[in-house]
């Protein structure tokens, strides 16, 4: 997509700007909303918009993950959590001005930091000079896998992916440790009738 004509590039940038504006609107809506069901729905919409941005950036693998995890499973899990905790956010005790100041200052610093980065999709940027050309030219030949993302993920960076898999595993173990072991705390007379499920 990035190698298209001038009008295509303008159209792509316009799509990205529209999507990012909608994401900003969703984020502001989430911050203002007190009904948590609305917040979860908006965060699902936010994730879908993010996935679309990833498609615009030609990162379809990331887009697929974002759509499935961010918009799909997170929404279901958050609805489950809301069902436990209740659907309305209580009024904040503190005034929002100090947190707002901290967030605005951090955001301004991040924006200032991006000024030092190379221009968007600049082929001369350091990240495109280091190992990326080797992955792109050698990857399909050496691994026999046409999708470079898979070749890098599973083969070149196999150790990283092993670590990621262990992170997912550890997250599951953590959830089981925190929420899964609740039976011993029950009163003895109730334990018998509830074991039948």
């Amino acid at each position: 997509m990035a190698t298209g004509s001038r009008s295509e590039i303008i159209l792509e940038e316009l799509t990205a700007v529209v999507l990012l504006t909608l994401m900003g609107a969703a984020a502001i809506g989430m911050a203002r909303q007190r009904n948590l069901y609305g917040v979860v729905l908006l965060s699902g919409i936010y994730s879908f918009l993010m996935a679309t941005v990833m498609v615009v950036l030609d990162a379809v693998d990331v887009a697929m993950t974002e759509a499935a995890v961010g918009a799909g499973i997170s929404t279901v899990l958050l609805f489950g959590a809301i069902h436990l905790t209740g659907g309305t956010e209580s009024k904040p005790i503190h005034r929002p001005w100090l947190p707002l100041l901290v967030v605005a200052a951090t955001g301004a610093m991040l924006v200032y930091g991006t000024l030092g980065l190379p221009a968007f999709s600049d082929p001369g940027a350091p990240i495109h000079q280091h190992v990326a050309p080797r992955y792109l030219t050698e990857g399909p030949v050496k691994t026999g896998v046409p999708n470079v993302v898979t070749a890098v993920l599973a083969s070149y960076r196999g150790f990283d992916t092993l670590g990621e898999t262990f992170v997912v595993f550890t997250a599951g173990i953590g959830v089981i440790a925190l929420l899964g072991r609740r039976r011993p705390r029950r009163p003895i007379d109730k334990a018998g009738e509830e074991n039948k499920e």
Partner: protein
Amino acid sequence: MRLDIILRVLAKLLIPFALVFGLYVQFHGDYGPGGGFQAGVIVAAAVIFYALIYGLPAARRVVPTEVVQTLMAVGVLLYSGVGIASILLGGNYLDYFVLGADPVSGQHRGIFWVEMGVLITVASVMLKIFYVFAGRRRDAEETEE
């Protein structure tokens, strides 16, 4: 719960396609977008969909909690096992070149099993987290009554 016949029929229609799509994303990941992480989430989402429509006990009968819990560890063990296998065949840890007759087929074999390990762990962890959350909700409702 008995009036949602449209949802039940639609779920029955859609879940097989979701599972097949998960397998497609898994095994076509070499050529198109996808891989173990995405496929694992899609497979878990299909079972979660079943649980949302037919209820948690029905889903637990189809995919028991103990199986899910075991598979969480099976996935990481499979991934680590590929590394051990490549050591035993004379290479470094996770060096796929030694796994096949020629380097390219070795890479194919290594990537296949590694992605399989990722699929198993991701799908079962997502499902387990859902089971734990949803199961807690049932318990909370029961104690309120």
